[in-house]
């Protein structure tokens, strides 16, 4: 059975239902997302200055353990805040589409946005004023200070607000594949919050802060990886609609997204079955990712690859190019994920590749959907292609280099002499990693620069 796409393009049908107020809110979500990346970039620069011998003496910083704190805030901004802001933007679009631009509980959107901006400042204040201790636990690393936790709490509440607004507005309204996809992603985000809550309730009083934070964010952190993947699948759906003559079959897409939400829901049961400190608890969530996550993206990837095979030349269309690069990086990262070590650079190699896959999809959608919807001038196709290719190519080289270095025995989360690069092989792979990282950073900076410039420029047309 064929599912020919609707006669009206996705962006046109969305633009028609985007009122002035909703467009301003969308501007806020996209601006917040890109600002999160820009701040994360600045924090990465500070991290480099703090660690580089000559620069360290030119810009002395008063605190000894500043480096891990900068890294923590960098991770939380560049992954957690960035992706969740995009979820906020997609939830807004889905709400607008299902209600034809007249949603109920509309005020919730602006309240959520303001709450998240305040929360982001709370997290930044914590790092600038050296509050709490650094905890480099998995998924959501933290500074152990009430202000930082309050920031994370505010972020969770803000995203919950837009997700609840979407779910409320889906009742008795039009629900297409896109709206289904975003609703399933939002529901999975709420499941992650339930996991955080259950972990917090189950943590015994005697454990030290490092393990407490690790287990607090372990289960929910894994469910957040479902959210990131589902976010990417929703964007794949939009990009496929834009890039190919035939979109993804709606039934398959809806089945894939809701089956992932059901799998994520089973994570809640682990809190009933296992002690939160136990080995079984730890292993069960990694197993859930290994066995619960791959089938849906695999089937959708296969379908999209078939569609893309008919698009020629692939690089001419921004949607097709970003979609192809996203598929490639996500596939590479997914495969690497089945061959991880314990504490070496194979782990960051895996997550850099999969996260880059998600990022490339978001980058493609920013240029082909968000900026046109916001009536902002888009950069030239050449500039967009360059940023996509630099970022995607660089991340691919980085991930392969890092994975090989991990096999050779380079430990993760270390720098300088701590890396123990005592063999030529280790050294070579880390040079490959460095070269890839350098190229990817240029691509990333270029993307942030272009997008911020467009977002800050005047509108080229009016909203509905």
């Amino acid at each position, binding site marked *: *059975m064929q599912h020919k796409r609707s006669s009206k393009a996705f962006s046109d049908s969305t633009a028609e239902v985007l009122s002035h107020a909703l467009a301003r809110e969308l501007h806020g979500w996209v601006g917040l997302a890109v600002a999160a990346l820009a701040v994360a970039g600045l924090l990465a620069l500070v991290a480099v200055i703090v660690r580089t011998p000559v620069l360290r003496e030119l810009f002395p910083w008063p605190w000894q353990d500043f480096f891990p704190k900068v890294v923590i805030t960098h991770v939380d901004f560049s992954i957690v805040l960035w992706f969740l802001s995009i979820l906020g933007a997609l939830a807004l679009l889905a709400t607008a589409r299902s209600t034809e631009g007249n949603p109920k509980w509309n005020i919730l959107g602006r309240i959520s946005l303001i709450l998240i901006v305040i929360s982001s400042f709370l997290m930044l204040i914590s790092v600038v004023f050296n509050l709490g201790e650094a905890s480099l636990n998995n998924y959501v690393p933290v500074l152990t200070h009430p202000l930082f936790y309050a920031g994370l709490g505010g972020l969770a509440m803000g995203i919950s607000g837009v997700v609840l607004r979407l779910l409320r507005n889906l009742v008795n309204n039009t629900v297409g594949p896109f709206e289904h996809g975003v609703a399933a992603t939002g529901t999975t985000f709420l499941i992650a919050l339930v996991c955080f809550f259950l972990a917090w309730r189950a943590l015994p009083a005697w454990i030290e802060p490092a393990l407490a934070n690790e287990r607090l964010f372990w289960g929910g952190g894994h469910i957040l990886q479902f959210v990131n993947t589902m976010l990417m699948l929703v964007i794949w759906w939009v990009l496929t609609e834009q890039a190919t003559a035939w979109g993804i079959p709606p039934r398959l897409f809806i089945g894939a997204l809701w089956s992932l939400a059901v799998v994520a829901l089973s994570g809640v049961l682990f809190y009933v079955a296992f002690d939160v400190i136990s080995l079984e608890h730890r292993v069960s969530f990694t197993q859930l990712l290994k066995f619960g996550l791959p089938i849906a993206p695999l089937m959708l990837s296969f379908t999209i690859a078939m569609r893309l095979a008919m698009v020629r030349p692939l690089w001419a269309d921004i949607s097709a190019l970003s979609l192809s690069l996203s598929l490639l990086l996500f596939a590479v990262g997914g495969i690497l994920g089945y061959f991880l070590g314990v504490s070496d650079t194979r782990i960051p190699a895996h997550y850099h590749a999969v996260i880059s896959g998600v990022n490339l999809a978001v980058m493609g959608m920013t240029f082909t959907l968000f900026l046109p919807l916001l009536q902002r001038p888009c950069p030239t196709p050449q500039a967009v292609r360059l940023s996509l290719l630099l970022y995607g190519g660089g991340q691919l080289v980085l991930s392969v280099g890092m994975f090989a270095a991990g096999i050779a025995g380079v430990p993760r989360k270390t720098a300088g002499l701590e890396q123990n690069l005592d063999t030529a092989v280790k050294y070579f792979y880390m040079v490959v990693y460095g070269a890839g990282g350098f190229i990817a950073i240029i691509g990333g900076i270029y993307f942030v620069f272009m997008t911020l410039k467009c977002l800050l420029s005047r509108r080229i047309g009016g909203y509905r």
Partner: protein
Amino acid sequence: MRVLRESVESVRLRKSVSDSWWGVIILVTATLTLVSVMPAWQWVWSPEPRPVTYKITAESFLTQLDSMSATYSTGEFIEETPVVHPPPGDVYLAAQRFRFFPVLELEIGGTYRLHLATTDSVHGFTFPLAQADLLLVPGSAAVLNLTPGASGRYALQCSEYCGLEHSRMKGWVLVK
């Protein structure tokens, strides 16, 4: 050539399983089946040994370990950790932020009962030579049976986040 390619593409589209209800059924069934048999997969892939555990205090465990180290010390050090060469039988290894000690030097074919414990906080213990991935909890020791088959320098690592230096928390077992 072009006609052939177009016909292949049209067949691909028409025959694509993913475009039908069958695709949805296969996807949902495969996903839910994989998840529901997760424990079985783990058992098939890595049948890890279940260690015997017993109650200890950090002091009593360190007393036994120090006694072994004093008796069988080789006088050598690896990364500032003393190397100990105990005979086959009971041997002791402790985890402490952010190191494992001592470095055990074992004999090929020797049968050892490896007693493991943490003396401060919770740590993980991953040791591929023994196919082990354990959680070491204060107040409890685990015992692994180990018969090394080949000489070499084998790494063991902490697999549970325990602080900023966690990634560097490694230890060694030498087999000669």
